[in-house]
């Protein structure tokens, strides 16, 4: 079909606007990348705005020579991998029984899970609870204490209930399979898109998680990347902007932190394109009324 002149203008304007929006979305990250590859003094003068000036990889060499980064990186990987694994395990263990209408007490357990989405004890009781369980400053505390997300659990429950036909379970049961076998050999393989989506969600939450890690950890060697970055960046730049003058030590710190940001974001952005199709699917699955 031929486009009218009006439509052509409409599409052109729309495309230009979307291009601008895309640039705005990416610009801050491009800036950080360029600044991290520039000479610290030129950055401190505010002369870098798009491309690196006075190209150097000095910042990266310094960052990678700083032991603290490696420790924090290792910690983040531990929390992300084990946290995601544990979260997925508990989510499956809850979502599968809740997807069965025949289960006695299903309504009660559903409410039990849903209630935590609308009301929580709050920050201080949660903190005191971690303290009383002796889980302050504990890696296990962070991994299991903040593992279940009821919203994600309901996405999975809806997927089990609406995307996988009951007849599969029935015929397996006739062949003598038990519930555990049905779950592991039939439901989980079929729910792979949903599992991948939720794994991504949990992983992103873990990788980016800051607040509780900053609250419960006291030992430096247990801190994840986000907490370390916060310490490096925000504390130092504030001190600088409050005085109004940057000291020469802060020049360096600024570009160093940019390099740290790049290093910490790379794994997220590297897996992102592959997982994009999954998380879009996951969100729309969650919108299905159960």
């Amino acid at each position, binding site marked *: 079909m031929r486009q009218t002149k009006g439509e052509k203008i409409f599409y052109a304007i*729309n495309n230009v606007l979307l291009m601008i929006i895309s640039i705005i979305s990416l610009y801050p990250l491009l800036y950080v990348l360029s600044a991290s590859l520039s000479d610290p003094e030129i950055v401190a003068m*505010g002369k870098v705005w798009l491309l690196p000036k006075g190209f150097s990889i000095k910042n990266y060499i310094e960052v990678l020579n700083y032991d603290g980064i490696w420790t924090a990186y290792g910690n983040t990987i531990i929390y992300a991998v084990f946290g995601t694994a544990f979260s997925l395990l508990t989510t499956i263990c809850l979502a599968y029984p809740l997807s069965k*209408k025949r289960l006695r007490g299903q309504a009660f357990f*559903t409410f039990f899970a849903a209630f935590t989405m609308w009301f929580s004890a709050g920050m201080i*009781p949660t903190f005191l609870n971690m303290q009383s369980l002796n889980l302050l400053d504990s890696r296990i505390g962070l991994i299991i204490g903040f593992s279940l997300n009821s919203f994600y659990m309901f996405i999975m429950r809806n997927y089990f209930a609406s995307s996988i036909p009951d007849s599969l379970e029935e015929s397996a049961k006739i062949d003598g399979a038990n519930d555990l076998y049905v779950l592991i050999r039939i439901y989980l393989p079929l729910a792979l898109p949903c599992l991948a989506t939720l794994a991504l969600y949990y992983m992103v939450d873990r990788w980016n998680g800051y607040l509780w890690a900053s609250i419960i950890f006291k030992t430096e060697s247990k801190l994840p990347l986000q907490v370390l970055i916060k310490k490096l960046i925000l504390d130092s730049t504030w001190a600088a902007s409050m005085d109004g003058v940057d000291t020469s030590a802060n020049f360096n710190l600024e570009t160093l932190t940019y390099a740290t940001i790049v290093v910490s974001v790379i794994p997220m952005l590297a897996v992102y394109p592959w997982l994009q199709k999954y998380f879009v699917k996951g969100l729309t699955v969650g919108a299905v009324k159960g």
Partner: protein
Amino acid sequence: MLNRKTSPPVDTKTGNKRQILWKDLKRDKLLYLLLILPITVYVLFYYKPMFGLQIAFKNYNVFQGISESPWVGFEHFKTFFHSPFFGRTLKNTLMLSLYNMLFAFPAPIILALMFNEVQKIKFKKFVQTCTYIPHFISVVIVASLVTSFLSPSSGVINTIISAFGGEKVYFLTKPEYFRTIYTVMGIWQGTGFNSIVYLSVITAIDTSLYEAAMIDGANKWKQITNVTIPSILPTIVMMFIMRLGNILNVGYESIILLYQPATYETADTIGTYIYRVGLENSQYSLATAVGLVNGIVGLLLVILSNTISKRVTEYGLW
């Protein structure tokens, strides 16, 4: 979403109920076995802390612990309601929510409409990918991007201002800018990702509606206002009502990273106040009392908004 009801088998013979229940429990024993792990996690980390809420009515001290500390009734609630912080934090929380609803709420709807009008699939994929990315950046990094972009000495914004001959501004120390900064940050981070929900509804619209509109001579603009927008209106209404129910929940994590005493006047919300009083000043009882008020009012608002949503859009969360 949660409106399923179990329909226990109809039982005509009285006295057999117990036997049938026992049979059902036995039949599903493996399912109950699966429930043990998640229920334990819920009990230990979500429900057990609720017993700690009693310290809102006590003078908690570390040595006596939660149950042994002396009761003081509503003293901490009175302290909060009579303090200047009550008015300030409530106002700031509501103002940030209001800014969010005015500016951040419509943004993904508009973006989804724009995505839908892109002709070339490759370009559409590209712009979607670009706009979703900020969602995957952590609050710490976003907050530090904001801090460095607004930095008075080397920040991009101030460099532009001074290039046009303006005075450099210490944005993050000026209370009058905080709400704008916070809202813009939220829009940058969330708009792309939040558009997914609307876009998925738009792509499900029956194409024959558009064809009929074109036969009637409707131009592009008329098609958008008369077909697309009415089709996603129920979703918009539902999302808006749910947003209203969460009016007291402002993302305080990023505020903690961005505010400073100079901007408390506009930046201090209920969430940040609880954090400061509780974790920085260790006034556990007062912080718990404030959290309890916030939690209960929040719960009531969610219930209320869900009821309204069901009436208006026939769609509720339960």
